[in-house]
Structures are given as structure tokens and as C-alpha cells.
């Protein structure tokens, strides 16, 4: 069942990517909103389907393993993709910007593609038992700590996509793209969702570390990388709220901050440390 959900979501996200390219070309060539509307509706259907498939994957894996599926890079890649699609749909409900939600799904596609790579190279075997080492046997903290991270990173991914779209219009606004002011506002909204969640991730991690390792903070590379990411988003909020930064500078800051997110996410591959149990 997991395999059906996994490959199904990969297929759905792949189709969203193709639809997005077609939608992009349609908008760019000004072929009219009717063709765009059909593509937009189809993409929405595929986004909902991919969200359902990813949710099904998480639920079936949870049931099969008996614990929150947040203990390996494969599982976290799935959760991260789920966060992007779920929040992408919520932001669509608020802003109705299909280009942003659709392009965010490309980040989710990359994550599920990464999951497929882990599967293909044998680094991850979904049928193998998912044994929890003693340090991870804390069901509540395991689920909340990692689920908050997935949602937080999901929000940041959408902010990253909106910022890229904003920057692509920094010299001249493109009529077929979302208005720069709207993108700027959407980016800010992703941070006010993602930043408290990232703070919660760090706090829950500290509480867990206190119970598991006897220290709420150990300067472990992964937790330090999360703190650095937090610093970037804190700087974004400070510059925005106190200094009135908007537009290009804020957008660049969000792009850099999301690179820090990616660095933190893949950190297990080049960090040694207390989070090393998460590699696969």
C-alpha cells in the first residue's frame, strides 16, 4: 500500500510539473484565461490528489511501523513534501495564486524524487523493519518535533518560491505573473507561519534533548544549523518590521534563508553528531 501511495504521489507531482510548464507557457504567450483556467483547475485537482496520496503514505507508514514516520531521511522527505503541498493549498485558498502553489509543488517533487533515489539505490527499503533506537522512543516528542519541522520547512519553501517569482520581476513587473506586492505579502505570511513553527521545533528539540541526553543544548551540528536558519528568518522579520524592508532585499534574504533550510535538511549527510541516527 505504501508503494502505491509513494509512486502515485510521485506521478501526481510529476504531472503537476508538466501542467505547470504548460500553464506557464500559456500565461506567457497570452493565449487567454480560458486555456489557463482549464490548466489551473486540472492542477488544483492534481494538487489535492497528491496531498491525499502523501497523507495516505504517511498514515499507512505510521500504521505499519507503529510510530510517527519521521525517523529517516526518506520519511522526512515525504513529510516535508506533505507540508509544502498542504500549506500550498491553504495559501492558494487565501491568495489564489496557482503559479506559486504549483511551483512550490516542484520543490515537493524534488523531495519525493530524492525519496525515490534513496529507494532505487537501496539506501532505504520501505519493507525493512523501521526499528526505533532507544533515543527515538519518545512518541509525542518524535511526532511533534518533526511534524512541526515539516510544516515550518513547507511554509519556507512556499516563501522561497514566491521570493524567486518576486525577484524575476525586479526590473519590470510581468503582467502574467502574480503582482510583486502580492508575492511580497505572501512571502511575509509564510514566515509568520514558518518562524513560530521553527521556534517550536527548536524548543521541542531542546526539551527532548534534556530528557534523552541530559542537555537541552549540545551545539550538535544539526541543531546549530537549525539555529542558523532561525537567525536568518529572525533577521528577515527584524528588517521587515523594524526597518521597513520590503521587496528585493527581503526577497533575497528569504532565498538565502531557504538555502539554510536545505542545508539543515541534508545536514545528516555531512554532519557527525547526535542526529546521526536519522541518515536513512
Amino acid at each position: 500500500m505504501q508503494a502505491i501511495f509513494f509512486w502515485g504521489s510521485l506521478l501526481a507531482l510529476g504531472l503537476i510539473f508538466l501542467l505547470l510548464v504548460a500553464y506557464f507557457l500559456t500565461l506567457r504567450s497570452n493565449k487567454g484565461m480560458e486555456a489557463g483556467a482549464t490548466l489551473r483547475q486540472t492542477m488544483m485537482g492534481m494538487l489535492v490528489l497528491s496531498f491525499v496520496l502523501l497523507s495516505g503514505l504517511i498514515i499507512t507508514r505510521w500504521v505499519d511501523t507503529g510510530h510517527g514516520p519521521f525517523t529517516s531521511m526518506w520519511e522526512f522527505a515525504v513529510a516535508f513534501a506533505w507540508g509544502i503541498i498542504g500549506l500550498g493549498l491553504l495559501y492558494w485558498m487565501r491568495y489564489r495564486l496557482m503559479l506559486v502553489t504549483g511551483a512550490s509543488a516542484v520543490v515537493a517533487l524534488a523531495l519525493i524524487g530524492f525519496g525515490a533515489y534513496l529507494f532505487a539505490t537501496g539506501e532505504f527499503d520501505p519493507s525493512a523493519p523501521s526499528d526505533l533506537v532507544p533515543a527515538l522512543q519518545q512518541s509525542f516528542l518524535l511526532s511533534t518535533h518533526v511534524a512541526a519541522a515539516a510544516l515550518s520547512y513547507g511554509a519556507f519553501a512556499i516563501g522561497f518560491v514566491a521570493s524567486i517569482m518576486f525577484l524575476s520581476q525586479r526590473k519590470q513587473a510581468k503582467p502574467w505573473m502574480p503582482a510583486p506586492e502580492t508575492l511580497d505579502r505572501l512571502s511575509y505570511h509564510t514566515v509568520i507561519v514558518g518562524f513560530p513553527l521553527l521556534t517550536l521545533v527548536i524548543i521541542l528539540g531542546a526539551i527532548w534533548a534534556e530528557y534523552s541526553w541530559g542537555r537541552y543544548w549540545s551545539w550538535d551540528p544539526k541543531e546549530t544549523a537549525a539555529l542558523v536558519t532561525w537567525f536568518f528568518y529572525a533577521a528577515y522579520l527584524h528588517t521587515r518590521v523594524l526597518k521597513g524592508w520590503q521587496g528585493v532585499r527581503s526577497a533575497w534574504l528569504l532565498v538565502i534563508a531557504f538555502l539554510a533550510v536545505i542545508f539543515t535538511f541534508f545536514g545528516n549527510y555531512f554532519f557527525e553528531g547526535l542526529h546521526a541516527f536519522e541518515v536513512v
Partner: protein
Amino acid sequence: MNAVLRFFSSVRVALWIILLLAIVSLSGTLLRQMPPVVAADPELVQLWLEQVARPAYGGLTGVLDFLGLFDVFHSPVFLVLGSLLIVSITVCSLKRWPSLIKISRGVDSEDALRLLDKGHATRATSRLSAGDGVAAIENFFTKRSYRLRHLSSGEVKLFLADKNRLAPWGTYAIHLSLILLIAGYLVGSYSGYSNDSFIVAEGETRDIGAPYGISVHLESFEDEYYATGAPKDYRAQVQLLSAGVVIKEGLIRVNYPMEYGGLRIYQSFFGSAVRIGVANSSSGVEVFNGSIALADGFAAEGYQRFSGTLDLNAQNLFVYLISPAAGGDPVIPADSIRLEFYDGEQPEGQFIDFINIPIGQHAEFQGLVFSPEEMTQFSGFQLREDPGLGLVWASLALFMLGLVLVFYFPHRQIIVSIKPDTKGSRISFTALGKKNQSAIEEMEAFGRAVAATGQIAPKTPGKENMN
């Protein structure tokens, strides 16, 4: 003095400090960091630099070490930046106190009129009469749970609407929480108790020492594994004793420490131990009987072995007990223990001799019979008491509270004036805190509400595209 205060209350300075802290922290993530036990010993530091750092960083090792980048989080640069941030936060917080009190009370009418006179207030003309306009304004703010104060001056009616007046204190709570966090860290660092390696062998009792006056007795230790070989559980059944009386007992597992008073006892590591008896060969009098943890790992000729020590002072003997290396050992047979004898404690004592004794058998040396009865286990506990922990948790809770107040209950203040006009009424309105996204959105919503009342100018906002 004023220049110093100005410097530390500058947002630009605070941002630079945050940025530099992020860069320094990043270097601590990218570069290998010395474990604390290494950093505390200059000899180990040199060894670590040669064996760990130099192979990885080559010629840069000296420079990186000079800059303190192999122990970034204890380096002067990090401590100075951290201190500067705290000073900056404190100065900013103190400086903002009077203005926060004023803000949370709400803008007064004089300030409100001054703000409306400024060029950036939005002005609109509505076909509604002033009376109907007042009703529409009141309806807008009441529906959105604003506190509404109104004043009249001749024909002009002034509305001072505000909502979520506690929100500005959210920023204060966030900054205060950072100070509390540092305070908690310092209290824990300088007045807490920490022992990272408190080893007790099965069946043994060990005194924790001052200031607790209690002992830990390890009844049993079990390590369990999955079929794949991955560790499943480490559990130590312990008793805490005071003056020989059991005061607490239970299971200690990873994630589930035992707590007594403010002291927490964590399951940290484990290993082999050997239960051994030592008796005088002629009289049969027992000299020692107990378990010895083989906790000190060392490598020799490519074999990793573990050892423990037994100090037989009265017999002027110091004994190393060494277990065979896992996977076959050319020197120590399997199911045996090697005893190395010295004529005094290391490193002064001179080596005398060694014997390998199969477990369950015995051997004699210098009038003593050594009987390793069985291999058991030891548990390594981590003992911690952190009096600053309460402050740390309080600071984190305060931080989250601050974030929730700032982001999800943002302070909104809108000032509106309305007066009769030949066409109906004239409305001027402005929001405070225009850098705040929520204020901008609220202003837009109010603008739309004004437009809906039959506004003539400015134009109704256009429909956004859906791309």
C-alpha cells in the same frame, strides 16, 4: 554615555550582531569541533589537532585553531558577540519601556489629529451623510472587536480604534526571554552539578558524593536488540540509598531519567564488567569480592580492548583487568580475563607480570587467589542538576507567548475622522505602524469598507489576478 546607549539601541547594530553570530555559528557547524573533554586538556588538544584536524584541514589547521574555530561556541569571538547581543537587547528593552506603556494605552486625541494632518492619511469623500458614515464606521470596528473611542470637536467626529493592545508587549516578552535564557544558562553552568560518567557495575553500590549524600545501587542492566541488530532498549534497574536505606527505586531508560530532588540520573552508556573474588591463598580470607566495570577503552596493535582497575593497597598491588577484543584476540583467549599486576598505582607503579584466567576458574599470584566468577555489565549514568532549567523553560514559554502575540494578535490602531460635506461626508483615516503587514491589510479592509459606503474617491481597489 549617550553615544554608547545610541549604539546599543540601534536596530542596525543588533542586526549586524545577529548576522555575525549566524556566521560564527555556521563555522561551528561546518568545521569539526573538539569534544569538551578534549578542549579541557591542552595535551589532548594537540593530539586532536594532529590526528583529527590536520588530516581534514591541512595547512589551514593552525589558522583555524588560532581563531578558535575548532571550539567556536566557547571562543572569545562567540562569547563577545553573545554578550553584545544581550547588552543590545537589554538597552533596547529599557529604552522601549516608556513608549510601550504609551502605545498599549492607545493613541491620544492630540497625537491622532496630528497624524491625520500628515500627508499620508487617506482621504475620501462619501455620498453617505456624516451620521450614516459614523454608523458604518462603528459597525466596521465593532464587528472586528476593536476598542473604539470617539471624540467630537464641532462637526468633526474622531474615532480612535485599537485592537490587541498587548501585542507590543510580545516583542518585549521575546527580548526578555532571551535575557532569561542566557541567565538560565549561566545559572546552570556555574551552580549546577554534572557528572557525565558515573559508572556502576551490576550488583554494586556507588556513592554519588557531596552534596547529595546518596548512593546508586545497580540491581541489573539489560540491553535488548531488534532482529536486525539495531539497539532496542537499554534499561537499568536501580535503587537510591541514603544511609543504607532505599529511598527510591525504579527503571532508568533512555528518555526516562530518574529524578530525586533536583538531581536527574540518565542512562548514558554501558559495557562489560567482571565479578571477581580475591582471597588470601593461605588463610582463605577474602580481600575483595565485587564487580569491576571494564569501561576504559584502549587500542593496541589494532585491537580495541576494555579495562578496569582493582587497587589492592594492603597487598601493594595494582591490577588492570582487561577483556579480550571482540571478534577474536591473539593475546587474550575468549571467555578469559587478563590481569596485569603493578607494584603501585599507575603511572608510578612498575609492571610485574600478567596472567590470563578463564572465567569461572582461578589463578594464584603473590599469595592471592584471583577468581573471576562471571562476566556481567555496568551502566554508565549521567548525573545532572541544573538549577537554571526552570529559567530556561520559562524563557522558552515566554518566547512562544511573545511570538503568538506579535504574529497572531498584531496590534492594530486606526484613526478616523469624519465630517459633513456638501456631497455627503468626508473621511480621513490612517493606521499606525505602517511597516506592519497586518496594519496595512487592516487599512485596506477599512478602505474597502469606506468604498462600500458610497465612496467617490479614491478608487475601489481592483480585483487581483489569480496567477
